[in-house]
């Protein structure tokens, strides 16, 4: 319990720091959300307005900029604005979009499911590919299958996501015509599952290669332990030993990395979402960065970071379940 509490405090600290830095970054970088509203009229350096006689266009720009900054609340001190934002965020109010006035929370809850499904889909594909390959590779370590799998996974890891996406679009979309290359969020459930296959495969194949390598290495190590020899001496079948005895203690690295990836893919699949036109959290972030819609970027980053850190806490809890030694160490410390 103390462990969980400590991690949760940690979570809060990370969230505050990350959101503060986001806020700071957004404010430091030139060209705020005002640019969107005013275009060329926008005056970034308001001290220019105080000079004696300025040309009418600049004067007009000055008035408009000042009025807009007041409406958006941008004229208030930085810390005050951050404090208010943080207070609202704690109650679940992430403010309204600068662009269209829609509450940021609504935009996020609307796009999050697509990203979650894509993440889940990709993970399922990755595990389906990785686990059998890793088990067989470890069981016959050093033989042709193992060598082949190692080489292939090394190659797959070196393919950038966007190249993989293009390759799949070319193969399955253009040449074979099996899968749609553009995701249609309004289609029926069956069509959407089909439409999400290529993006999920793009993400899942690379993950699968990483997972397979990690699990194989750990399995090879586990298979040399005494309790495996013991199980063998007791006459257990290879199948039983591999699946029931060796697999569980070998999943540490796999769980760690899979956990990291769960966090990373929520809102992190910007390129894949863009290539396949999926309206997920990644697309929302990309578009709002371009529109300089601070509020949305800020809110989305908060959600993404929370997901990321929380998944890590869950992963730490899973260690305790997987390895009793960890549990005891924690109970003692």
């Amino acid at each position, binding site marked *: 319990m103390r462990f969980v509490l400590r991690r949760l405090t940690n979570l809060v600290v990370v969230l505050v720091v990350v959101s503060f830095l986001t806020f700071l970054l957004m404010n430091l970088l030139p060209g705020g959300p005002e640019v969107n509203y005013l275009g060329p009229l926008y005056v970034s350096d308001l001290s220019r307005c105080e000079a004696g006689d300025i040309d009418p266009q600049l004067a007009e720009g000055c008035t408009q900029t000042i009025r807009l900054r007041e409406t958006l609340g941008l004229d208030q001190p930085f810390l005050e604005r951050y404090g208010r934002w943080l207070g609202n965020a704690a109650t679940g109010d992430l403010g309204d979009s600068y662009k269209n006035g829609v509450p940021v929370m609504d935009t996020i809850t609307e796009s999050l499911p697509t990203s979650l499904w894509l993440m889940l889909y*990709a993970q399922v594909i990755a595990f389906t590919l990785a686990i059998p390959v890793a088990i067989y590779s470890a069981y016959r370590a050093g033989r042709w299958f193992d060598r082949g799998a190692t080489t292939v996974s090394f190659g797959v890891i070196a393919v950038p996501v966007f190249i993989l996406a293009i390759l799949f*679009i070319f193969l399955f979309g253009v040449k074979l015509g099996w899968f749609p290359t553009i995701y249609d969020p309004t289609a029926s459930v069956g069509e959407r599952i089909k439409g999400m296959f290529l993006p999920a495969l793009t993400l899942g194949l690379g993950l699968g290669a990483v997972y397979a390598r990690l699990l194989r290495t750990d399995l090879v190590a586990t298979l040399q332990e005494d309790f495996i020899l013991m199980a063998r001496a007791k006459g257990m079948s290879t199948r039983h030993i591999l699946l029931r005895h060796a697999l569980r203690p070998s999943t540490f*690295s796999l769980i760690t990395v899979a956990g990291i990836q769960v966090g990373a893919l929520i809102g992190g699949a910007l390129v894949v979402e863009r290539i396949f036109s999926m309206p997920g959290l990644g697309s929302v972030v990309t578009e709002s*960065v371009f529109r300089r819609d601070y509020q949305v970027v800020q809110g989305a980053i908060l959600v993404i970071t929370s997901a990321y850190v929380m998944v890590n806490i869950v992963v730490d809890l899973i260690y305790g379940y997987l390895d009793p*030694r*960890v549990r005891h160490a924690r109970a003692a410390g």
Partner: protein
Amino acid sequence: MPERPADSALSEGLPDAAVFHEAQAEVYADAVVAAPGGVAGEVDDVVKRRLGPAFWVAVGWLVLVTAVAALAPVLPIEEPERIGVGGRYEGFTGDHWLGTDKLGRDVFARTVFGARVSLVVGFAAVAGGLVVGGLLGLLAGYRRGWFERVVMGFADVLLSFPAVILALAIVTFLGHDMWKIVLALGILSIAPITRLARANTLQWSQREFVLAARTLGAKDRRILFREVLPNVLMPMASLALIGVAIVIVAEGTLAFLNVGIENSISWGKLVLEGKDSLEQAPHVAFVPSAAMFFTVLALNFAGDRLRAHFDVKEGLL
């Protein structure tokens, strides 16, 4: 304070295995070291002391790509931006080995010139990250105490920040020229490098020869730079190669998000250009893709091999 595992979110969805080894080692150490029994012995593949022919093939490819890219202006190559040197979407012909694109520009020439940008961005960003992150990590691992806590806390925060979004934001706001992209990607590479440098320094600064140096009255600066640094340098350099691969991919990722380098061509941008003509002329996308893939593969492979090579296990001494 339990530490979060490092990750290399720079390349979305495709982090490299080497960083995972560190992540795994740290997590495992964090959880198990206190427990009796400890960690099962490192049973990686049989440690190979030779680099092997495949390593030299990878190095050969990298040298070739770098040389061609560096010498591109003086080599007899078509001008990359000249329109209509061939027909529209020509296939592989004698005049244009790797075909032409929709404006009749030479795909081979464009790929070669794309290499210039991609390689400069990759090496420059990692070099910057290596200097800053390496120094911070070295000091954090050696000095320990509050300095270590501050530096590592900072690295943790940077790492929990979604990397692609950070790069996207920096580049969108600062502008799209090459050195700004190098700056953005360089900043992103600081945190993972710091963690690695610290982990390596921790390991080496507890060795007997450091104790010996200290007993002989060596000053901290001498111990750090003459005793510890040389040992940390090679593992760091091999990881830096993998870092270059990650940055090259990250630059391509930015290009795909429409914040690529303006007025110049990189591999990522070329792949993006070719994406629209997959039906008529897939080679326009796949030629630069292949160049990128083999380069990333070679960097990963060479880095991985060097890491294994310099990874001196105590048991071998």
